[in-house]
C-alpha cells in the first residue's frame, strides 16, 4: 500500500505530560515534576476509506491520540502524518480536510436554527454559497434533519443534536472524520440512526472514520477494524468481525422468573435449580444471572433449554461489558 493510500500514519509516538509535584510556594521552592506517559510508543496506520474504532477505558490514551492526530497536541517523540500532513505544523491546512465531532463539546450555535450553524461552518471552510446550499440540502435528507432544521439548537433532543453535529462536520466534505464518543448519552433509537448515517457516509463517500467510543454497539455496527488501547499502548488491533468471534464470546443473560417459581425454594437454592447445560447462574434480587460462553453453548440452544425449565417473566441479554474484554486483553497482554 503506498503512502498516498494511507489517511493516517503514526510511527512510534509517545506523549508524556509533566505536572508540578507541588503547588504554590512549595512548588516554587521545590520545582519537581511528575511525568505521566499517556501514549507509549504507538505505531499504526489507517488506510483511506477505512472505519476504525479506537477504544479503551478512561485514561487509556484515546483522546490524547486524537488530539495529536488533529494537531492540538505535539507528540513527545515519534511522528504523526494525517493526509500526508504534519498535524501541528499544518494545523489550519489539515483542518480544511478533517471533520471532528466531540460528543461532549457542541460545535453548533446554541440559540440559532441549525441552518445558521451550517452556514457559518460552510463559511469557515470556504465552501462556495451555492455549493454549501446543495451540500446542506443533501445532508438534511441523509441525516433526516428536515423536521427540526429551522429550530434553535437549544430545543433539539440530544439525538437530534448529535446527528446535526455530524452533519455539520461533513458540510465541507472532509476526507477523515474523527468522532469522539458520538453516541454518548443517546437512547437506542438515536444511536441506531446515528450509526446508520456514519456507515452511509463511510460507504458512499469513502470518508475515513476514526471513532472512539465506550459502546460496543458503535464498534460492531460502524467499524470494520478495532484497535484497543490501554495504558497508552495498543493492546489489540484486529478486524471487528474477528474481535467479535474471538472475544465477544460471552453473553450475560438476566432472567426474572415468575414469582411462583421463585417461591418454591430459598434464594440460595435458585442457582442450583436453574442450572442449564454447563452454565451455573448467580441468584440475586429475584433475578438469575447467567454468563453464557457462546463458544461452548450456542445461545439459541441455551435459551430453548432455559425457557423449557424456567417460567420467565422478564429477560435481558447483554454482551460482555467492553471494559471486561479490555481488562482481559490487557491482562493477557501483560502476561
Amino acid at each position: 500500500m503506498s503512502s498516498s493510500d494511507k489517511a493516517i500514519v503514526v510511527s512510534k509516538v509517545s506523549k508524556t505530560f509533566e505536572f508540578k509535584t507541588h503547588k504554590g510556594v512549595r512548588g516554587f521552592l521545590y520545582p519537581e515534576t511528575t511525568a505521566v506517559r499517556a501514549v507509549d510508543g504507538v505505531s499504526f496506520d489507517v488506510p483511506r476509506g477505512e472505519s476504525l474504532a479506537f477504544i479503551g477505558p478512561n485514561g487509556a490514551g484515546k483522546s490524547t491520540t486524537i488530539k495529536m492526530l488533529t494537531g492540538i497536541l505535539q507528540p513527545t517523540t515519534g511522528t504523526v502524518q494525517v493526509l500526508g500532513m504534519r498535524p501541528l505544523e499544518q494545523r489550519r491546512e489539515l483542518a480544511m480536510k478533517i471533520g471532528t465531532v466531540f460528543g461532549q463539546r457542541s460545535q453548533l450555535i446554541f440559540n440559532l436554527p441549525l441552518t445558521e450553524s451550517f452556514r457559518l461552518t460552510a463559511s469557515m471552510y470556504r465552501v462556495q454559497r451555492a455549493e454549501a446550499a446543495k451540500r446542506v440540502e443533501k445532508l438534511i435528507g441523509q441525516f433526516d434533519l428536515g423536521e427540526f432544521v429551522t429550530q434553535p439548537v437549544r430545543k433539539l433532543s440530544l439525538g437530534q443534536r448529535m446527528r446535526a453535529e455530524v452533519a455539520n462536520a461533513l458540510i465541507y466534505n472532509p476526507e477523515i472524520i474523527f468522532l469522539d464518543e458520538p453516541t454518548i448519552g443517546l437512547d437506542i433509537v438515536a444511536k441506531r440512526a446515528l450509526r446508520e448515517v456514519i456507515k452511509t457516509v463511510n460507504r458512499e463517500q469513502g470518508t475515513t472514520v476514526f471513532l472512539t467510543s465506550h459502546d460496543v454497539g458503535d464498534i460492531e455496527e460502524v467499524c470494520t477494524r478495532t484497535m484497543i488501547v490501554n495504558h497508552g499502548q495498543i493492546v489489540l488491533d484486529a478486524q471487528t468481525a474477528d474481535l467479535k468471534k474471538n472475544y465477544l464470546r460471552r453473553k450475560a443473560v438476566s432472567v426474572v422468573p415468575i414469582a411462583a417459581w421463585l417461591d418454591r425454594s430459598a434464594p440460595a437454592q435458585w442457582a442450583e435449580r436453574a442450572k442449564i447445560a454447563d452454565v451455573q447462574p448467580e441468584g440475586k434480587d429475584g433475578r438469575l444471572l447467567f454468563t453464557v460462553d457462546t463458544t461452548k453453548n450456542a445461545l439459541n440452544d441455551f435459551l430453548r433449554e432455559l425457557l423449557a425449565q424456567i417460567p420467565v417473566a422478564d429477560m435481558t441479554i447483554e454482551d460482555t461489558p467492553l471494559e471486561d474484554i479490555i481488562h482481559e486483553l490487557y491482562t493477557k497482554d501483560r502476561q
Partner: protein
Amino acid sequence: MKATPSKLHERGVGQLTRRSSLRTYLDIIRASAREDSANARRLVAGVAVSVIRVGLIAAIYKVAYAHSAARTSLPYANALWSIAAYFAFILNLGIRNVFKIVDREVRTGVVEVGVIKPIDWRLYKICELLGKNGLEFLAQLIVLPIALLIFVGAPDMSHLTFLDSAAFVLLTLLAMIVASAMFLTVGLAAFWLQDAQPVYRILDKLTLVFGGAFVPIALLPHATQILVRYSPFGVYAAPTQLFNPQILPSLGPMVLAAVAWSAFLVFLCDRVWQRAMSKIEVNGG
C-alpha cells in the same frame, strides 16, 4: 462503493472556492449578532439603563459644574458627551469582556475545539464578542446622542478639524486592537493560573479609573493626565477624548503611543498564545 484515493484527492481544499477570510470573520460577527438579537428585551433594557445613567450623571455634573472651576477646562456638554462615549465604547462594546470568553473556554477545555478550525481562534473570539455586543453598541450610538441633546445640548466641536477626526478614527481602531490584545493576553493566563480573575479585575479597574469612567480624564490633575493618556488604558479610552479640546496638541503623540502599544501587546499576545498552545494538554489532554 468505496471512493478511490484519486477521487478523494479531488475533494477538500482544492474543490473549495477561496474566499476572503475577512468575509468569514464578518459571518462570525453576523451569526453572533443574530444569536444575541434573539434577546431583544436585554437590548432594550441595556439602552434604557444607559439613558437613565447618563441622565443621572448629567444632573450630578450640573451641580458640580455650578460649584467648581472645571467648566473652564471642559465645557459641561462636552464632559457629558465624553462620559456617554465612554459608556458606549468601553462598557457596551465591552472588548475587555473578551477575557471572560477566553478564560471560560480555556478553563473548560472548549478551546481545543476552536483551535482545530481553519481560522484564528483569537480573532474568532473577538468577532464573537463584537457580534454579541455590536447591536447594543449601535443602538447606544443612536439613542444616547438623542438623549444627550435633550439633557445637555450639543457638544462644542469647533476644535476638531478633518485631520483630527481622521486621527480619532485611527485611534478608535488602535484602541480596539490594544484592548483586544491586552484582555486576550490576560484571558490566556488561565492556561497557567487556576484563577486569572484577580489579574483581570486589576486591569479592569485601571481601565475604569484611567479611562474616565468616574471622572473625565480632562478633569484629572495635569501630571496624571499625561501618565494616563499614554498608558494602554488611556489608549483604550482615547476615542472618548473626541469631545475634549485640550487633547488636540497631544493627538499626534497619542497616535504614536497607540501604534507602539498595539505592536507591543499584539506581539506579547502572540508569544503568550504560542506558549499557551504547548500548555493545552493541562486543560483536557
